């Protein structure tokens, strides 16, 4: 008798989880289904999650009818340069904060921790007012500077936390074996810190990919938009019937991030928790 109760409970639990997972995914499934649906029957109440007439027309319209490829190019330029420059700047800084002891180190660290809680939106106007006399508004260079500066603190803290978790004995052993300082760092420490470097890079990439508020405020003209700013400008208004195209664009924009997220997931936990800060 007890086993029957247990079986029934387990079946109920599985039904519960299937229902919850489905409910959670509804907004995404709905967008995917609308983007693939041929007849725009979105006003009818006979909607189903499986498209009745399958078509890729909306995707064709997004990729060739909108400057999406241009936006993708802009985003890639911004993302790659931000990731490379912030890693080049943050790795040596984080190393020195973790391994060396010198005057001003504690001041830097407590300053960084304090600034980490500062939301970038609050100083947006000041940044605008500072960059505009330098002619950096509406340029990629201006946005790259902003993205690197905003993520520099996260990069330093996250990498420093991970360097802290690598035992110093490994470096000492390498030194005893005759490796000099630079050699120790390049061929011993950096390979060990790979998960944290990957995660920090991925976090900068995701940040740049998803950042829309600076991009729409500082950039004018469709040709300068990033994917995020472009998607923002594509939004369906209450009147227009562009919602299926917007849905297709959302899928196109999200796919690379979903792939990167699930590919880096293995490193995500160790690379983020050791640093103790979440971007």
């Amino acid at each position, binding site marked *: 008798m007890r086993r029957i109760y247990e079986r029934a409970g387990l079946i109920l639990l599985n039904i519960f989880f299937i229902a919850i997972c489905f409910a959670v995914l509804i907004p*995404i499934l709905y967008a995917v289904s609308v983007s693939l649906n041929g007849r725009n029957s979105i006003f009818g109440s006979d*909607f189903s999650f499986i498209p009745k007439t399958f078509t890729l027309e909306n995707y064709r319209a997004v990729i060739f009818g909108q400057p999406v490829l241009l936006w993708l190019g802009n985003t890639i330029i911004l993302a790659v340069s931000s990731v490379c420059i912030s890693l080049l700047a943050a790795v040596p800084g984080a190393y020195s904060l973790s391994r060396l002891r010198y005057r001003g180190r504690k001041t830097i660290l407590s300053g*960084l921790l304090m600034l980490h809680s500062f939301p970038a939106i609050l100083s*947006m106007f000041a940044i605008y*007012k500072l960059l505009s006399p330098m002619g950096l508004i509406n340029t990629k260079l201006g946005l790259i500077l902003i993205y690197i500066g905003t993520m520099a603190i996260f990069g330093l803290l996250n990498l420093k936390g991970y360097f802290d978790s690598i035992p110093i004995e490994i470096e000492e052993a390498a030194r005893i074996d005759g490796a000099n300082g630079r050699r120790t760092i390049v061929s011993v420490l950096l390979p060990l810190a790979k998960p944290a470097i990957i995660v920090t890079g991925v976090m900068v990439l995701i940040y740049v*990919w*998803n950042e829309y508020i600076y991009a729409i405020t500082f950039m004018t003209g469709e040709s300068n938009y990033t994917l995020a700013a472009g998607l923002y400008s594509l939004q369906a208004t209450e009147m227009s019937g562009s919602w299926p195209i917007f849905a297709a664009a959302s899928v196109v924009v999200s796919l690379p991030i979903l792939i990167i997220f699930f590919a880096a997931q293995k490193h995500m936990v160790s690379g983020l928790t050791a640093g103790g800060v979440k971007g």
Partner: protein
Amino acid sequence: MNGKKRNTLSAWVCNIPALAFAGSIVVFPIIYTAYISLTNMNVYHWFDFAVIGFKNYISALSVVDSGFLRALGLTVLWTALNMILQLVIAFVMASLLNIEKLRPRKVYKTLLMFPWAMPGYVSILLWKNGMFNPQFGLLNQWLSGWGSEPVRWLAGDVLAFICCLVVNLWLALPFMIMIMDGALQSVDKSYYENAMLDGAGWFTRQIRLTVPAITPIIAPAVVITLFTTFKQFDVIYLLTQQVGAKTGANIHTVLTYAYENAFVTNNYGFSSAVSIIIFLLLISFALLSKIRRPGNEKNI
């Protein structure tokens, strides 16, 4: 002595690039914001602004209908509701996921991760245009299928606030569930056997054993979430306050309020004063949360 000095020098050289970026994009703009907050800079006084002292602070903090205090109150309510709901729901979900004989646990976990993996602003825009849209949104399609009148989800203050809350929970719960799940798995199972022998019921076991056992493990993640919830901008801005596409609901958190005053009503001095007040609040929270957790010091 000389060697020590050289070490200090080379350590600083390592730090200079990153600190220069942070300094020019974060620190200097904060100082400049503090300066603007003492002036009457607005769209009429773009270049010929004058220093007016603490007037902006006084009007933000003492004039009740200036909107800042209302936004601050709403932000506190928003943070409190979000944290309570997140902790309770994540605890229940993680407990259910940890029931021993639940086989397809991994599939459920992966599916539940999706809202976290999706780009946040895309999800929010999908909610706005796909679910809440008064004409072709899915919710109103369902309502009309049942013969009810369509609802303008994001127009009224209370309803729009609830919609924002739902979307934020949808975005934030996966992270919290994963944290709870990890914490629950680290609890020693033998405690429960002893408690069961002593005749403690399910509820008593959760309150007396599980909650105290997981509290220290989830504490850092909870503090981080507390900050991100207080600083939440995207959900409320994208759902209700988009420039040129406001839905009519008058709900603001402190961040959307500061943004509105800087870029919509162009009241730069006032907006900067609000920004500095928020920054000071955040710093004092950060200091408080550090005093409460002395174990944190080993990080430095």
